Structures are given as C-alpha cells and as structure tokens.
C-alpha cells in the first residue's frame, strides 16, 4: 500500500496511468459499438494491419519518433478495413475468414518489411519492436495530450451522432429504410476504431489492443440493457482497467503494463458475468411483486 501511495506521487507514473486510463476510456466507449455490431474481432485484424504501416512510416521518415509511424499505421489499417468491407460485401466469403486472412497477410508483410529494415541497417530500428507488445512506460506527457485530444474528438463525435449510431448498432436495415446514410455511419465507426487502435498500439501493443476494445464493453453489457449506460460504464471500466493496470505494474519492477491492463479488464469482465443472471432474477422478482400489488395472479 505504501508502495502504491509513493507511486502515486511519481510524475512518470502519473503520466503513464493517466495515458492508460484515457486509452481505456476511448476503447470502452468505441468498443461498445464494435461489440454490439458483432465487429469485435475487426479491431484485432486492424491492429495487426498497422504493422506494415508502422515500418513503412519508419522507412519514409527515418525515425521512430514523430507522427510518421502513426500516419503509416492509420493508412494500412484503413486499407485493411476497406479490403474487409469490399470482400465481405462483394463475395460469398464471410467476415471471420476475411479477418483472419487480412490479419495474417498484413502482419506477414509487416515482418517482411521489418527484416528488410534490418538488412538496410538503419539506426533506431529497435524502437519498432515496441509496437508488437507495446511499451506503456515510454509514454510522455505530450503523448498523453495527443491521446486526450483524439479521445475528446472521438467521444464528441459519438455524442453528436448518438441517435444515428444507436440505430445503426441495433437495426441497420431499419436505419437504411428510413434514409440514414448507414454506409457512411458504419465507415465513421470503423474510422474511429482505427483512431483508437493507432492511439493504443504504442501503449499495449498490436495483440492486446483488441482487449481494450472488447473486454470492457462486454463487461458493461452484463450490467445493463441500455446503450447510454453501457457506453458510459464501458468507458469507466476501461479507464479503471488502464489506471489500475499501470499502477500495479509500477509497484513491481518486472511486470509489463500492457498485459496487466488486459488482465485487470479480464478480471472485471469475470466479476461482471454473474450480473446478468442476478439482474434477470431481480427483474423477475420485481415483476412478481408488481403483479401482486396489482392483484394479478402469479403463474
């Protein structure tokens, strides 16, 4: 406990914890829509698809700092998203096959590019590895500021288009029938997903960023049936996972932050699992007492 309190006073740690919390917030809020639209694993495919972009960004700019890598990551992730969309819409292949294919091929091309960078012997290439497993400890205040701004923008978009996104998440056919631009809204949600992934890979890495988008949202789903509550709750649970994971990793020296954040989120999810059953039972009891009060017979 003393460690924890001492750690709270530490500037670097506060930065890392804050960054992880912001990331969890963003992941939870956007993940809600991904989970409800059965697009959970899209985030996994897109995060793997950032690798070739990161390496290309490095090859073009020649440095691992700066926004070149982020832009590259966003470009190849968006390319992958477009490819998934085209193949699923135009052929008889189903989403999961396309996701697995895109994920492995993009990542494979990324590793080919990594070996190419190694043969050119460019300096500073070692920084590229951190994208695979993430390196939260490397977060600095300016990173966190960028993350916070992007998160604010993404959340503002969600808040502004809340009604439309809700309809698209639950009943896209109806949304199309009443004239909403469903394609564009879906593209927007995917674009926001790409933003969240690009913001997150530095911190938790390519493989585990999917957890920040899926697990808090799935946990929140157990507690509520209302979308607004779910978005807020998922964002909160994500933020808590991020902060707690970062703090835990600071108390012991050799525990990496990314996996800890994911494990905290998974723990929250496991604790949440009984909530749905509990809710159903409570709901049934409430219904029974309501019926009694009305004098209606109980089955």
């Amino acid at each position, binding site marked *: 406990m003393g460690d924890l309190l001492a750690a709270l006073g530490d500037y670097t740690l506060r930065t890392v914890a804050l960054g992880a919390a912001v990331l969890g917030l963003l992941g939870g809020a956007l993940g809600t829509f991904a989970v409800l639209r059965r697009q959970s694993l899209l985030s996994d495919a897109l995060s793997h698809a950032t690798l070739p972009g990161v390496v290309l960004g490095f090859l073009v700019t020649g440095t691992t700092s700066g926004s070149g890598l982020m832009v590259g990551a966003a470009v190849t992730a968006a390319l992958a998203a477009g490819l998934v969309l*085209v193949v699923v819409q135009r052929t008889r292949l189903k989403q999961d096959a396309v996701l697995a294919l895109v994920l492995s*091929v993009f990542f494979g091309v990324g590793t080919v590019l990594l070996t190419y960078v190694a043969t050119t012997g460019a300096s500073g290439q070692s920084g590229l590895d951190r994208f695979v497993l993430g390196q939260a400890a490397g977060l600095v205040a300016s990173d966190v500021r960028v993350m916070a701004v992007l998160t604010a923008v993404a959340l503002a978009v969600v808040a502004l288009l809340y009604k439309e996104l809700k309809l698209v998440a639950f009943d896209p056919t109806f949304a199309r029938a009443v004239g909403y631009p469903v394609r564009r809204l879906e593209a927007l949600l995917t674009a926001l997903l790409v933003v969240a992934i690009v913001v997150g890979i530095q911190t938790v890495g390519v493989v585990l960023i999917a957890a920040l988008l899926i697990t808090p949202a799935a946990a929140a789903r157990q507690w509520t049936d209302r979308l607004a509550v779910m978005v807020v709750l998922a964002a909160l649970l994500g933020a808590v996972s991020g902060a707690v994971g970062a703090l835990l990793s600071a108390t012991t020296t050799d525990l990496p932050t990314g996996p800890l954040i994911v494990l905290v989120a998974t723990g929250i999810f496991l604790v949440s699992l009984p909530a749905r059953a509990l809710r159903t039972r409570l709901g049934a009891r409430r219904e029974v007492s309501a019926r009694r009060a009305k004098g209606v017979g109980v089955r």
Partner: protein
Amino acid sequence: MSVDLVIVVTAILVVVPCALLGSVLVLRQSVMVGDAISHAALPGIVLAFFLTGSLGPLTAVAGAAVFGLLTVVLVDLLQRGGRVRGDAAIGIVFTGLFALGVLLIARYGGNVHLDLEHVLFGEIAFAPLVTLEVGGVDLGPRSWWTMGVVAVAVVTFVLLLYKELKVTTFDPGLATVLGLSPVLVHQLLMALVSVTVVGAFDSVGAILVVAFLAGPAATAYLLVDRFSVMLATAVGTGAGSAVVGYLLARVWDLSIAGMMAGVVGVVFLTALLLGPRHGLVAAALAERRRRTRLRERLVRHARGSVGEGATVAQLAERLHWPVAEVERVVARIS
C-alpha cells in the same frame, strides 16, 4: 540434408492440415478460433516449461494443446446462454490468456531461455536446426515429425469423416435428423484445429499458421463450388504459395514466414479479382451483360408498342432515355 528441402517440406506438412481444416472452418465461419488458439497457447507453453524445466518438443506442444482446448471450451462456455456473442467471447478469451502468458514470461522468464518473439512469430528458418533424437539416434528434423503426425491425423480425419463433415457443415439440422451428432463432429474438429495450430506454430510461428488456415481455403472458396474440389484446391494453392514464398524470401534474404504469408495474400487477391465465377472482374462483367440485355429487351418492347418503323427519337421519348443511348442499343440489336 539440404536446408531448402527441410524448410519446404516442413511448410508443405503445415499447409496440408491447415488447408484442409481451414476449408471446413471457412464454411463454418469459425476461422478466427484458429487465430485465438494460436495466441492463447502461449501460457500453456510457459507453464509446461516451468513444470518440466525444459523446452522439450513434447512438453511445449502438450502445454500449448491443453490451453488450445481450454480456449475452445471457454469460448463455448461464454457463448452458451447468450451471455457474450461468439466474436466477443473469442476476443476476450484469447487476449486474456495471451496477456497471462506475456506476464508469466516477464515475471519468471528472466533466467529462462524463452524468447517471446520466437514463440509468437516462430521462424521456419530454424526448422533444419532442431532435430529429433531418440536414444542418441538422429531421426531428422523435429518439425517433420510433429507436423507429419498432425498431417496424417488430419488427413485421416477428413477421409474417414468426409460425409459427416460435409453434412454437419452444410446442414446441421439434417445431420441431427440423420443421427450424425453435429456436436461430436464439432468437438473433434476443434480438437484437431487446436492440435494443428499448436503443432504448426511450434514449427512456423503463429502468423503463418493463421495465414495458411484462412488464405488457401478462402482462395479455393472463391474459385470452386464442390467441397471435395475445394479441399484439393486449398491444398494446392497453399503448397504453391509456400514454395514461391520460400524462393522469394531466399532471393531477397527476407523473413521466410512473412514472405509465405505475403504470397498467400497475393494469391488470394488474384483469385478475388480474376476468379472465373466469384471474382470481382467476372461479377462486374456479368452485371454489365445483364444490364445490356435488359436495355435491349426494353428497346424491343418499346419498338413493339410504338410500331415497327419507330425512329430512334420516338423510342427515346417513350423510354425517357437519351437519344445516344437508344442509338447504341438499336445499332446492336438490328
């Protein structure tokens, strides 16, 4: 033994079971389970290492296989009762287990020779270096033995249960009526997928396994319509991609596994664009033909109602089309 031979044969031994099982998974829409298993096996490998203190071939594969099966069971458990949808369940389980694996390596792996990157990406280039020795006798590359056993098991499974696989995949309802137990076939299939993924990623790395599971099968699905032909096509394209990928990687001295995955992607893109019936180009051409034919019928119909000697201008007015458009169609049909 030549290095090239060992690597190419290993790759083909991985391709055969991956392409066969991948075809079934593509049709059943559960390819991502393979991806999940390949990541979730990590803690199994680490725990097996801690328990036995060595990274022997059998301990690693056994530990990974246990966690592979655990993944399938956990995903099924979460899905049951509709608590979590299938894709979310897969995402939660594999990220959680993978995080656990990374944590175990970081916490206790300091004094242990367990290289995470190797476990994750594997490196098929090392296949010739790892040989199986029993009682001091060199029995050849270890990967040949692991993947050979897996390949034989999968081929036997597909041959013996061909009919059952086909019926349970395409029509689970009919399968139940016929007494074929889709559940049993599903569990057998998942167990084999688990063993294949784990055995293969010991030899070639997780990413290439997923590429071989999804790529050749998806390519075949775009090219052919019969299940048996699809299986053969998948194995053929997979083996071809592996060989070409290896040659390119040798020429340019780049990552072999990555290059093979890249070639799998190129082959898929080619089939996607140029496939004879389901390809994008063929579909666009067919669409154009349909439109042309419809236009011709509309013009004939308009001519019928206006009168045989109708001028282009009259037809254009009747159809509310631009004159040039009608001219083109009339030139084609007369």
